[in-house]
């Protein structure tokens, strides 16, 4: 019976083409606007590491005090002294530190001109904590961190440029005049947003080319190329004084597996701050934070406000399209009051009338979904007009978006049809027959 109703519905679409076209267009535009903005929002607000986002935390220690800190919040990074102290304390099951570096490299195929490359200086736990997939080799062993070895991990893309994609593990690479030993090549790995390095970065720009052993980078005095934030007197002169300054530039991450580990680590951060207060480094009471990945992305405002506003506007737009559809469905259904009267007189129950018109609405929704999908695909190329290329490239149509487009279109139209269909089912057969 439902298939018959569906055929009736499709036939009725053809009966008043203007009204039908209006409804299909309203649904189509509404769904497309919602889906386009949603695809951007989904890309920028998603969980970049769903398996572990609840076990990874940023330890924040207020090393600036109430005079200089960010409206009571501790800085987003650590200074060298605190970072090294937390590393040595070994209070988390895993911990890593990150800072950005810029080095020059001589590419595989170039005639001679070196190119600038960007990478991260980090520690062994980086690869295990963030589940970095490897193409060749692995990350370096944690003991190498203590040996201050000249180890490096390349990304697949950088390995392609430097070694033409060959297995380069064991080879050496020269960056800015220093040699490093390649221990691994990662698979393509670029979580969006790049959660581990969003302090002072958008989280969507170009990924790093390589990962360098942090202690080695420090020994070679490789400058920080990322965010560096200092307070008060900048009196340091040279590298060693810079390391002892209050400048924060190291991004710390810890892995904590259970809630009790988290609580214990928080207590550790507090007691560390208390100790620093006692020895006179901090002139203020402990002020620490321990956000997990999603909280951290939220605090760092990684989702551009434009993305949220455009999604909200698009959904309001869709709601208006639905209100419009309710009105048009009402007109369409009640225009056939006579026909309904006849059916009712011939024995159809209200329930059957109700079902018939809901199915007819679903047919409209389906047509709207088709149009919406076409508009969404067309609109994806226009996302570049609304957002910068780094973000626009993340928006794409996939199976789940196609499914969602149809589901939303059909579900919303059927929901919109509840009232008009109910009115249709209320038609009095006798009244209709009499007036005819």
């Amino acid at each position, binding site marked *: 019976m439902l298939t018959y109703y569906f055929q009736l519905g499709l036939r009725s679409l053809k009966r008043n083409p203007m009204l039908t076209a209006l409804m299909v267009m309203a649904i189509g535009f509404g769904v497309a606007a919602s889906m386009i903005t949603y695809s951007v929002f989904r890309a920028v607000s998603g969980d970049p590491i769903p398996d572990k986002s609840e076990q990874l935390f940023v330890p924040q220690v207020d090393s600036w005090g109430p005079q200089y800190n960010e409206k009571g919040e501790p800085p987003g990074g650590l200074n060298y002294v605190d970072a090294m102290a937390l590393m040595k304390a070994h209070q988390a099951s895993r911990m890593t530190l990150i800072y950005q570096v810029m080095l020059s490299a001589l590419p595989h195929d170039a005639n001679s*001109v*070196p190119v600038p490359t960007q990478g991260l200086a980090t520690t062994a736990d980086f690869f295990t904590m963030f589940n970095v997939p490897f193409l060749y080799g692995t990350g370096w062993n944690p003991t190498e961190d203590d040996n201050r070895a000249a180890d490096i991990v390349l990304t697949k893309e950088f390995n392609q440029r430097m070694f033409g994609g060959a297995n380069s593990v064991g080879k050496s690479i020269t960056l800015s005049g220093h040699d490093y030993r390649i221990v691994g090549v990662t698979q393509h790995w670029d979580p969006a947003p790049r959660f581990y390095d969003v302090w002072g970065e958008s989280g969507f720009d170009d990924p790093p080319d390589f990962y360098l052993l942090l202690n080695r980078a420090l020994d070679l005095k490789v400058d920080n190329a990322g965010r560096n934030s200092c307070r008060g007197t900048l009196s340091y002169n040279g590298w060693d004084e810079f390391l002892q300054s209050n400048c924060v530039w190291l991004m710390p991450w810890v892995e904590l597996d259970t809630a009790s580990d988290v609580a214990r680590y928080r207590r550790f951060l507090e007691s560390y701050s208390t100790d620093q207060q006692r020895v006179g480094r901090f002139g203020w009471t402990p002020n620490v934070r321990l956000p997990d990945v999603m909280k951290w992305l939220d605090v760092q405002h990684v989702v551009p406000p434009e993305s949220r506003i455009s999604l909200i506007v698009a959904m309001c737009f869709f709601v208006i399209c639905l209100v*419009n559809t309710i009105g048009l469905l009402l007109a369409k259904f009640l225009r056939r009051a006579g026909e309904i009267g006849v059916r009712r007189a011939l024995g159809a129950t209200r329930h059957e009338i109700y079902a018939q018109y809901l199915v007819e609405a679903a047919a409209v929704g389906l047509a709207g979904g088709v149009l919406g999908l076409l508009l969404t695909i067309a609109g994806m190329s226009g996302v570049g007009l609304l957002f910068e290329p780094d973000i626009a490239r993340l928006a794409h149509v996939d199976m789940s978006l196609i499914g969602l487009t149809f589901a939303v279109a059909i579900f919303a139209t059927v929901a919109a049809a509840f009232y008009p269909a109910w009115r249709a089912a209320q038609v009095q057969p006798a009244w209709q027959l009499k007036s005819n």
Partner: protein
Amino acid sequence: MQIKPILAAMRRHKAGTILIGFQIALTLAIVCNALFIIHERMTRVSRPSGVNEKNLFVITNDWVGNLSDPQTAAQIRADLDALRQLGSVEDATAMNSFPLHGSGWDNYIRMKPDQIHMTTDSSIYMSDDHTLDTLGVKLVAGRNFTPNEIQALPIQQMTSWPVIIVSKDLAKLLFPKGDALGKQIYVTNNYTSSTIIGISDTLQSHMMDNDSNAYAYNAVLVPMRELGTGYVQYLVRARPGQLEAAMRDAPKALVAQSRMRIFEARDGVMTFAQVRAKAYERDYGMAILMGIVSVVLLAITAAGIVGLTSFWVGQRRRQIGVRRALGATQRDILSYFMTENMLIGLGGIVVGTLLALGINLWMVTHYGVAHLSGSYLLVAAIALLVLGQGAVFAPALRAARVPPIEVTRTV
């Protein structure tokens, strides 16, 4: 026109009336907030940078190899000489950042060395004696830097900036009496003072985020060339009409100086117009999106009104026929439908105004946008009423043409 019978008739088709009214209300709420966002963004985009942007372009030069600081300083000097000697180039300078750049260096400005909280925040532009001319920014008081005042060293080794030039707006903020010239302020982090030797005309800060709006025109030019960063940015002013030639010649001239450098293919060489477009990318994007949404929304609302009114006209052909037979003119019938639509529209506008204010209030608290001004509501309300009248006109005209003879026919 009598309103009472119209109201009575509306009561007969409550659902349709409410739906159209509600749709008008929602459309009003969204459209006037969208217009307001467009206005806000466009106001932001049309802020002057103070820079004479025509004929100006930027080269981002990454150094390769391991140049020592003195080598880098010498190379920058040689580069700038080479650029200035080009026939298509008027002037050139090296800077760490510039208006609309987004990233750069900002420092807290203090009036006294022991002051704990800043007086204000300002961009620090590391400049030389050619910076003002290259940017096309005039001095309104005092003098420019001299070549021997320019220090070239890494920022960590900087001990003081004895002389500085401040933007007009910053000077006024710090010294409201207009006596900034010759005064000492504290713009470094190490409590050394700097003497204001010049005041420039309007010059925008490099900071583009909304949190920095209060500091948007604070700029301090310091006589310094920053080394040890691995890159340098050259701003080059082409002779009038020779921008293209200069953009072609300049990188070649630099490579002729030394090959140990890289210009990124994507943004190594950019006209200032491109810098501006990039700086305001999101603002243009939002304005475009809001524009599209408003237009489509108005179109859909108009289409909805046409659709429902057509249905009502169809439903009431007999009644219209009766009225016509009883002496109503075509004009009476036309104005009946027009007035009906006007009443629904007015109702929608009342509800819509409240909704619009609610949405705006929510955005004020969540996204720091300004309060909606009444003129937007008024414009959007009038636009919607006109739109409604326009949309209802065709079906109303069809109603007016229903012949009185209709009353005698059975459907």
